[in-house]
């Protein structure tokens, strides 16, 4: 456990440092960003340098950045003129809601479709497979626009924007969850079908177990291992997808904050978002390890 914690911290440090270095190496300097499209004179530059402490050596700036991180101080946003911690605190909630809802949608759709179609006739499988392929290959932006035009603009079932109430969550969660359902569904069905050809399946059938019970109680567990391995990809897709989904649906959240920060090169915000994503990855990979053991007792500690 201590070893895990150590690895986790190392990953966080690496994420913090590499994002810092990457932004440092990117073209243009911080003062240019702070000035933006605005008025640019030597005296304004001098004032900005003094205000943000940009005249210190880079190593000192880096170390003071790490030191402040250790104290939970993410600094101030260049663009938004507010504490980064405060910005993130207000934006984490909506993103968490969206990603959890999308993950739940994706996973349950995948499980339902896989259970319903595994080992069934060619037509059913073929149709499911085609739908999955479409949902994976169509860009999320387009899925979102189509969902909006049909269910919001034409039928008026769901509101287009806002994070208020569960109704407003339906379409964005679908837009974000469908590609996940597509990939996960295919992997799950493949796993189920392989499991159903195993000798234990024959034994179970011989003991008189119905096909449905066999799939749900025995085969699913085998099919889960490859699916769970995908969870890392899954987290990345969700976090990346929020950027598009949140802007499209006019939702608050980390995605649109990250987008604004990256285009405006708002370093403190970008780095805080990178760190937060790293934390999420570390947490999820730890949970996965535990999950493997629960699913397959043969993987011992």
């Amino acid at each position: 456990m201590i070893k895990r914690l150590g690895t986790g911290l190392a990953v966080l440090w690496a994420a913090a440092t590499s994002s810092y270095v990457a932004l440092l190496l990117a073209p243009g300097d911080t003062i240019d960003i702070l000035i933006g499209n605005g008025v640019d004179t030597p005296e304004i530059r001098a004032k900005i340098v003094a205000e943000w402490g940009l005249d210190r050596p880079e190593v000192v700036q880096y170390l003071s950045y790490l030191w402040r991180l250790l104290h939970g101080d993410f600094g101030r946003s260049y663009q938004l003129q507010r504490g980064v911690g405060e910005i993130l605190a207000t934006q984490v909630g909506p993103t968490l809601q969206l990603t959890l809802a999308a993950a739940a949608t994706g996973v349950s759709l995948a499980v339902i479709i896989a259970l319903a179609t595994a080992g069934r006739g060619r037509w059913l499988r073929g149709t499911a497979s085609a739908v999955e392929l479409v949902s994976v290959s169509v860009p999320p932006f387009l899925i979102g626009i189509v969902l909006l035009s049909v269910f919001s603009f034409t039928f008026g079932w769901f509101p287009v924007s806002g994070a208020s109430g569960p109704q407003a969550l339906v379409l964005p969660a679908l837009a974000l969850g469908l590609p996940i359902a597509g990939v996960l569904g295919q992997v799950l069905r493949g796993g189920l079908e392989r499991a159903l050809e195993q000798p234990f399946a024959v034994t179970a059938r011989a003991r008189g177990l119905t096909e449905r019970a066999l799939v749900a109680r025995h085969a699913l567990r085998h099919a889960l291992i490859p699916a769970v391995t995908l969870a890392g990809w899954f987290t990345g897709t969700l976090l990346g997808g929020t950027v598009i989904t949140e802007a499209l649906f006019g939702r608050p959240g980390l995605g649109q904050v990250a987008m604004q920060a990256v285009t405006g090169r708002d370093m403190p915000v970008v780095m805080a978002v990178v760190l937060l994503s790293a934390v999420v990855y570390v947490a999820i990979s730890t949970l996965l390890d535990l999950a493997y053991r629960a699913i397959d007792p043969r993987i011992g500690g």
Partner: protein
Amino acid sequence: MKRILPVLVLTLAACGSQPSAQQAQAATLTWAIETQPITLNPQQWAQNKVRLLVFNQFDALLSRGRDGAFEPWLAKSWKVSDDGLTYTFELRDDVTFHDGTKFDAAAVKANLEQFLVPGYNAAVAAIQLAAFDKAEVVSPTTVKVTLKKPDGLFLDFLASPYSGQVSPKSLKSAKNLKFGGLDLVGTGPFILDRYVQGQEIHYHRNPAYKWAPPSAGHQGPAYLSELTYRFLPEAAVRVGALTSGQVQVIEGVPATEVNLIKKDHAFQTALNSGTSFSYYFNTSHAPFDDQRVRQAFREAVNVDAVLASVYQGTATRAWSVVGKASPFYDPSLEHTFGGDTAKANALLDEAGWTRRDSAGFRVKDGKRLTVRSVSSAPFVRDRRDILAQAIQAQVKQTAGIDFQVKIVDQGTAQQALDENQYEIFENSRGDSDVGAALNLILPSKGAINRTRFSDPRVDKWLAQASATADQALRKEIYTRVQRAVVTEKAIVFPIYVPADQLAAQKSVHGLGFDPGSGTPRNAYDVQAGT
């Protein structure tokens, strides 16, 4: 809905305790806007697109009437001394801030002096308030402002969002002064009560409001009791939200959707003030150090055809660096350049770009006639990327010019500008007084002089025009400036006049544009109707 209910209940309760609010009917409106504010503090304001939000919550000292002339607002009257150095303002004595404190001369002084706090707003302190010396409280309703030198743009500053009067008490106590928010209050017709970044901003009516400027459509409290602005950056989504009735008003209607919207909705558009969207030629190195090449580039483009295809007839062609909506616009420049392919080729031949390479581009001394434009992605709007592609195709076809369009991140764009690695700079500015924009773009030492062009006459004229408040004289001087840079020296290629659009359900009344800036007006006169 669940979250809205408590707000309604609260509002009803508030109405019960304040009889003045009962006179106006309860009405709510939802308005989808494209741009999120990066700050809610008017003194930090930097986005023309959010001007409409500023003046919901804040009032300025002066306003601009429908003809663009200054008129009283929180200042009842003003006097300027003959030497142009002393401004004396008589203030209204019946104005209170949303936090209950009284608006008076001390508040005006505190607001002006706030800009001088180091690190607060260096840009405004250095440009708009460069001439500001001191503000003195003469009596509770009289304030005297002294300038170091005459400044023809000072009244414009006092009518701008920067002059939105903030309660001095909240200037001291606001948790996030530079960002503003619920605890940074003004005197405006609406009171900010909720801001959700990335989603919406919500106001309720200020029931005590009775100090609208004379040109407003009515006096007394606003018609709307509740007002929500939703941030919908995607144009197609804004249009869908309007046509499906989820919002009542949208701004920023894409050219491709205008005809569809016009069928069932009220649509209006207005030209922005400030400068036209123009290509500025970098005159510091080849090929645009040669005036013939600059003129040839302008002649090689059929601007009308390009605008018609990119904006489907919704764009207004520009003929001067000064926008058509400005009182200083010189109409004599119309139809003086552009679209003459034969002339373009003759000019380029004359300038020595006679040979062609295998790709069909002109060549001189083994170098291709290449011009580059570098723009920063966050500031590319209005389909200007598509516009650049259309111009790119035209100049290649008609004159053999290799126009390279690069859209990059802000740092890379800034680097190209700093290192002089560009030939064309694309820009428009929305300043309500175009003089402010010209002062940044045209003088030899202008803060955003990207033409790197220097003409002592232009420098002198601009300084003269800035030092006087005599509008007739300023018009005469700016006419000279426009003729010098557009016709005589051809350092700028004006393309179109930026505009704003509003579309609304037909039941909504009282929408309009700010006469000073040409951007959508605040919601004070708006009625949701039934």
